[in-house]
């Protein structure tokens, strides 16, 4: 394997592990802020217990996000130094603004939120949660602006092979940025809502933490039912924007090889990159044209319309896109079904729904990874679309050095982050602890949930894990 492929694999691996945590904490911080504000408004203690519970999980996730993010800010230079030299003038300031506006805000107030339960008045704590939630969204703003500029560069001139900024507004608000930002932020909120819903459903299935579980389910279903359909519209708009600026990516997403007439919507196929045809294709005639051009007879550029060295590889883009859309449609169904059950008063008792929701927690993460695989592979063979080819962007580093560091990253991340996820699981199993009001946690727990806690302590005394 050559150094370029290894460097790509390393970046793909490190950023894929990384994105899981910010995608979760963007939504989770907003959820915690909402809970703390609700607690302030209503004075109902279960909001506080929920906030504390999710804050512990937030702390572990955020720490993993931070430590997996630090290597990213150095990888630009260590593995992609030509990219840094070419795009540094433009990309650099956006990353810099991310650090200045978001990272310090999040990291500093995290201390107040986490550590301040004894020292901090509730109002300040809620303010800290709001600041962190704002910080995570700001962070998404800047990094998505930088990524979007790599997809649809604007507001720059090239001199001697180096990009120089001309118009910062045009750079930051480049053509694909508003769509990508809306699509990704919504994805992050959906992902967290799904996890919250799933945890609530799992508690109800075993009859634990009922009051908290109902609140989590109501909030989760509400978010899914509203944001799911919104995400469909945003995704459609994002797709139209991609068609306008990166038509080759759309052609690869749809495995659209030849431009012979209106485009079919391929539901399933095995794209054959060698023969440049689809095997085992299942397609709906003309629907692709209708979706992308809003016209039965619309024409969409096909892969054959692009030079061979300006086309992305099809297979990954095609399948990743289908995984994302499939999960998206499932989440909309889950949200609407939940809303219907809620209306009928059966949300907390319908076993099939609780079970499906309980198992659905990883789907948001998978959809996000699939979406990023689609858009980043669809940008190939460029790292900055139309400006810099990926193969010309790497560092003058020996392939062995990149391979060794890749192996080290895989090993370390594999160990550290699996343990982290195991610990999150452990915390979720333990459930919200009742230390919201004065008194020992145990006393409060018994007062609030006599049966559940008695059952749990019996289980603990037998050395068994809770069955959640």
């Amino acid at each position, binding site marked *: 394997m050559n150094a370029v492929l290894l460097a790509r694999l390393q970046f793909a691996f490190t950023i894929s592990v990384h994105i899981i945590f910010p995608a979760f904490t963007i939504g989770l911080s907003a959820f915690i802020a909402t809970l703390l504000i609700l607690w302030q408004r209503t004075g109902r203690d279960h909001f506080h217990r929920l906030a504390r519970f999710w804050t512990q999980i937030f702390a572990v996730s955020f720490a993993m996000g931070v*430590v997996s993010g630090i290597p990213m800010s*150095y990888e*630009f*230079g260590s593995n992609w*130094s030509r990219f840094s030299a070419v795009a*540094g003038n433009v990309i650099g300031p956006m990353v810099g603004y991310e650090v200045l*506006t978001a990272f*310090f805000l999040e990291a500093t107030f995290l201390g107040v939120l986490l550590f301040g339960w004894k020292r901090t008045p509730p109002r300040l704590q809620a303010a800290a949660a709001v600041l962190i939630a704002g910080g995570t969204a700001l962070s998404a703003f800047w990094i998505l602006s930088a990524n979007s500029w790599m997809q649809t560069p604007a507001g720059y001139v090239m001199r001697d092979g180096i990009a120089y900024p001309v118009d910062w507004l045009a750079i930051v608000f480049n053509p694909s940025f508003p769509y990508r930002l809306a699509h990704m932020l919504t994805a992050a909120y959906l992902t967290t809502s799904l996890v919250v819903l799933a945890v609530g459903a799992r508690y109800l299935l075993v009859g634990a933490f009922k009051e908290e579980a109902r609140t989590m389910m109501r909030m989760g279903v509400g978010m899914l039912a509203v944001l799911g359909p919104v995400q469909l519209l945003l995704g459609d708009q994002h797709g139209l924007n991609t068609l306008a600026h990166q038509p080759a990516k759309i052609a690869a997403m749809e495995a659209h090889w030849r431009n012979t007439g209106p485009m079919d919507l391929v539901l399933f196929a095995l794209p054959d990159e060698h023969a440049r045809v689809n095997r085992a294709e299942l397609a709906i005639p003309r629907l692709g044209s209708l979706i992308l051009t809003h016209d039965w007879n619309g024409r969409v550029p096909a892969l054959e319309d692009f030079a061979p060295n300006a086309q992305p590889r099809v297979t990954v883009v095609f399948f990743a896109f289908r995984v994302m859309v499939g999960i998206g449609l499932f989440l909309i169904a889950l949200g609407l079904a939940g809303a219907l059950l809620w209306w009928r008063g059966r949300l907390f008792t319908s076993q099939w729904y609780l079970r499906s929701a309980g198992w659905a927690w990883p789907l948001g993460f998978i959809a996000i990874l699939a979406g990023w695989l689609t858009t980043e592979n669809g940008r190939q063979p460029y790292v900055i679309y139309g400006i810099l080819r990926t193969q010309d962007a790497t560092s003058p580093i020996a392939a062995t050095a990149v391979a060794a560091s890749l192996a080290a990253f895989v090993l370390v991340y594999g160990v550290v982050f699996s343990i982290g996820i195991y*610990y999150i699981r452990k915390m979720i199993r333990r459930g919200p602890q009742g230390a919201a009001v004065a008194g020992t946690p145990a006393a409060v727990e018994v007062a609030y949930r006599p049966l559940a806690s008695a059952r749990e302590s019996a289980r603990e005394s037998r050395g068994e894990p809770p069955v959640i």
Partner: protein
Amino acid sequence: MTALTGAAYWLPLICAAVIGFAVAMYIVLDGFDLGLGILFPFFAREIDRDQMMNSVAPFWDGNETWLILGGTGLFVTFPRAYAVVMPALYVPLITMLLALVFRGVAFEFRWVAKPHHRKWDIAFSAGSIVAALCQGFMLGGLLGGTRVEQGRFAGGAFDWLTPFTLLCGMGLVVGYALLGATWLVMKTTGSLERRARRSARVLLVGMLGFIVLVSVWTPLEFAPIAARWFTWPNILYLSPVPLATAIFAVACWRGLLRARFMFSPFYSAVALFIIAYIGLVISTMPYLVPPALTVWDAAAAPSSQRFVLIGIAILMPFILGYTVFVYHHFRGKVRADEGYH
């Protein structure tokens, strides 16, 4: 250099000052919490370790953010230096980042894992020691010079590894441990504080030893550094540097001897670090990547530097403001009942 006037001359200097400030903030702030990890093997009792972790738990995330600012700041304002330094220091850099992964997650995992937290004690300690060593290696590697041809790094993967870099690595480990020990003097009570005082005295002597060694070694090995320090009238202008080092070393020592001095050891140790850092800047200015790239050679486009500096001018007061707020909010000695979760 004479051709550069106006913004082209001043912007890179201002940017270099800002990045220098970020790196100094990182060294001091993350220095003391890395230092606690370095001291972990000498404080084996669980209750002591809990207090040590609690004393930095609210701050470590913010402290580490200065490292990100240093890295991205270099990328933003001096992309050409960034594109040379990162490949040149690839091995210690990646090792440091991986060590920081272990150390960072240990802050959170340790509490969740209890009572099976020993492995995270080890991860925290080993991660801190390796990260500090690697930072020293990177400093030494940078001072030792980097081979650059046509704006790209042209050396080998282990060019940075010399006896001098080993010295810098060990020096930084001892220095961070001193910061950590004096931090404990300030933030803890009882037997932990007393033992921290004793360790800090040994570490202070050690750190001064390393300062003297580096101060003798660099001018002997690197002629430009000798010329910078030991020519007339520089030697006169620069004489406050060793003088201030001596004064703060004495202040630190005196503070460590008397139990009523809680703050002076830490602040003197911080001052020692800042002076050593200023000394290194004096030795290398105006080079970012000696002997190849000056701040002007490596600078980003003026409009990029200006765009970022505007942001820094507006945002840095807020960042410093709420950093001070958080340190103030969690001021004073750590109380034993102040658990993390």
